[in-house]
């Protein structure tokens, strides 16, 4: 077991070194490291989302396709506190109120657990839902007004709502199907993903959005730090990117500690190994599943606003591409394995960022070398470009091709199966 892991790690390291050598030979260290600095924050975000896929899969073997939509909605949850509705008769505040009531109520009901009377639980959940919806309505900016709560309070609320959404989603859509064949919840997940996209579109419209500049803390606006200078290339990273990397690494570390060191974490691992036996040992499997959904959604909610602040527009279909990249990462790392998801996310993020580098392949020394050897001609390359387009159009395709390659040679993913620790 140990030896295979080492072997695969060695192979990947070797491949990566070869790639590094190739790029450095063409472009120099500065360019290589600059692309790496672009890829790392991207990878950190994808990794944080991939963990959500992997954790849920580890316990109930469900690929939660609606996870990308949780990511998208949590960015909108932050947006709704910052931006007033578009017109006085706008329907958005009412839909938002209904959503908040539903998810907070659903989460409360689930959190109250199995032991209590349903009537009591319903009464409490209903009360909490109404209070939360009313409070939320009061916190929303009025038409033409400014944000009523500071950015970070809104951010915290958005993460909380994301957790509630994850839990409610599980309680309403997946738990009733727990005993059905695996295909059925999978189809439900796809349906739920479409439903959430459409809810977002009805509420906030289909246009691309950013957070308003005047409501964004200066911490997150594009201040750039020069890390080092190599030759005449400055190694730069924006403060926001640095924050993303730190936040992602910290949250992953906390999560790992939680899963490996706490009793609840142990219960999660037990459920991942064998749900039936775990429940016989007195573990409340449903609560553990709900917790997995909450953690996954919370992580997505944590990184979603950062992703938008980084300059990627927010729109209802945005969860799809990010979600699919994260899903590919989870599979690449070995779905069900948390460390695998983190590593997979990083790899996919970095590959994704490196693809456009090859747009300028024809100006590189390696191209000249191939030309000298007669392997390539400039005309042929131009014809190829005209017919197939430039590499940067294939960013997603290359990331996928890489995932497929890994799966062909190691069907369980990089870290899959070999380790028993799934949670």
């Amino acid at each position: 077991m140990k030896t295979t892991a080492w072997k695969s790690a060695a192979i990947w390291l070797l491949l990566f070194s070869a790639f590094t050598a190739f790029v450095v030979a063409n472009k120099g260290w500065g360019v290589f490291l600059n692309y790496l600095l672009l890829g790392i924050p991207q990878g950190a975000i994808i990794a944080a989302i991939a963990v959500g896929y992997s954790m849920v899969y580890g316990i109930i073997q469900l690929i939660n396709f609606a996870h990308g939509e949780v990511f998208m909605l949590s960015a909108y949850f932050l947006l709704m506190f910052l931006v007033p509705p578009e017109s006085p008769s706008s329907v958005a505040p009412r839909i938002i109120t209904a959503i908040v009531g539903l998810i907070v109520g659903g989460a409360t009901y689930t959190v109250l657990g199995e032991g209590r009377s349903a009537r009591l639980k319903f009464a409490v959940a209903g009360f909490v839902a109404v209070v939360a919806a009313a409070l939320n309505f009061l916190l929303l900016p009025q038409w033409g007004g400014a944000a009523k709560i500071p950015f970070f309070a809104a951010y915290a609320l958005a993460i909380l709502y994301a957790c509630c959404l994850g839990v409610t989603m599980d309680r309403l859509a997946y738990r009733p199907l727990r005993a059905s064949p695996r295909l059925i919840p999978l189809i439900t997940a796809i349906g739920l993903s479409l439903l959430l996209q459409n809810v977002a579109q009805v509420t906030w419209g289909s246009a691309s959005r950013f957070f308003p500049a005047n409501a964004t803390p200066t911490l997150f606006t594009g201040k750039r730090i020069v890390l080092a200078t190599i030759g005449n290339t400055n190694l730069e990273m924006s403060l926001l990117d640095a924050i993303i990397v730190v936040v992602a690494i910290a949250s992953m570390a906390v999560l790992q500690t939680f899963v490996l060191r706490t009793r609840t974490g142990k219960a999660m691992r037990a459920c991942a190994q064998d749900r039936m036996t775990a429940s016989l040992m007195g573990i409340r499997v449903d609560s553990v599943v709900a917790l997995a959904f909450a953690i996954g959604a919370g992580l997505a909610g944590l990184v979603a606003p950062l992703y938008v602040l980084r300059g990627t527009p927010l729109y209802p279909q945005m969860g799809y591409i990010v979600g699919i990249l994260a899903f590919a990462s989870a599979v690449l790392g070995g779905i069900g394995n948390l460390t695998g998801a983190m590593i997979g996310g990083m790899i996919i993020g970095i590959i994704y960022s490196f693809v456009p580098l090859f747009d300028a392949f024809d100006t590189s020394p390696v191209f000249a070398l191939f030309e000298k050897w007669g392997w390539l001609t400039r005309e042929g390359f131009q014809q190829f470009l005209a017919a197939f387009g430039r590499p940067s159009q294939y960013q997603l395709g290359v990331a996928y091709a890489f995932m497929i390659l890994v799966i062909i040679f190691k069907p369980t993913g990089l870290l899959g199966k070999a380790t028993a620790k799934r949670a």
Partner: protein
Amino acid sequence: MMKRLAKVAWYSLVSCTLFLLGGCGQQPTESGPQAERGAKEPISSPQPTQVVQKPILLAVAGPFTGDSSEFGVQIKMSVELAAEELNAKGGIGGRPIQLMLEDDAGNPAEAYNVATKIASNPNVLAVIGHFNSSCSLAAKSAYTEAKMVMFSPASTNVNVTKNSDYVFRNIFTDDFQGQSLASYAGEILGAKKVAILFDNDDYGRGLKESFKKKAETLGVTIVSETAYAKDTNDFRSQLTTLQGYQPDLLLVAGLYKHAAVIAKQARELGIKTPLIGGDGVFSEQFITLAGQAAEGTYVSCPFLFELGGERAKKFAEQFRAKYNREPDAWAALSYDAFQLIIKGIETNGPSREGIHRYLKAINSPATAYDGLTGKTFFDEEGDCRKPVQVAVVKGGRFTAAEKQLSIEEEASPAKGDDQTTK
């Protein structure tokens, strides 16, 4: 028992929520039904009481709903304003103008249906529209068969006027726009190295190719060309690649949506290179989306009210007074299109053939029609050569750039390129 109760409780919570949602959904929207009605029936403009003569029917076709409805509605409003103005003066020889408004929703299939409907009504003399190039291309055969003038105030695709004697436009073509942008970049902004990011569709590729061709004759080097697909929303790597060439200018041949993201991410990466774009970027949405990052972006556009004369200012005032919003360039172009058709009816009488004959005769600068948007005359294809105007984003809005292309400067080299323009 408890379990069932819990279930009932859940369902009632869910249904309450759905009820709340449903209640929201039923809120009547003020504009919806009215717009619907407007699009379906011909509406008559207010008429002076003494008029009993049969009205003259003109059609307006464009996207009054759908993605590009923002532009389509402006066209409709502008033509309605013009018709009202004319009818208040007593119409043409006592006959008022009546408009037939048809919605193509920006959808080529729908545009063809609408065109068939308009062309088969013998009372309709000419049509102003369509907006989207794809719609104009789909619709033109129907009008051509019916020997009826189709006058587009907005479609810029090179092929729109080709193979048809009856299609006219008073806006530049994409080819000409690309050449003008290149002239502006090379001669006025003095750019030596230009990097290009282009949308990989007809519009983006066309604009890029014509820009490139012209730029090469001016000694401007294209240092990099990068295509992107419609669903791209991360341009950081592409921008890092092209930053390596240290270009003086970055051409975005695509739509405002992508241009805004590119602007934002470029500034975030610390790239200070100014952006330049075609009319696809000329949208208020570009500024809303990109915010501070939009500042200093050059955009070519068909018409700027700032550069227009007294009449354009007066039109803008009337438009604001009637609709409480700013007219856009296409509103002005539609107004001119309407006036040209009216002139045709006044000169040659109310017939399809008469309007066509009149527009065909406007074929040189000497016979040009001097409208809100400058002098309009057509070449044998029905294209019009009007100078491209350049706007720059300053203080959160589009303002006319300090230096504009002069007509001579543009016209002389453009003539050499006639082969490619048409």
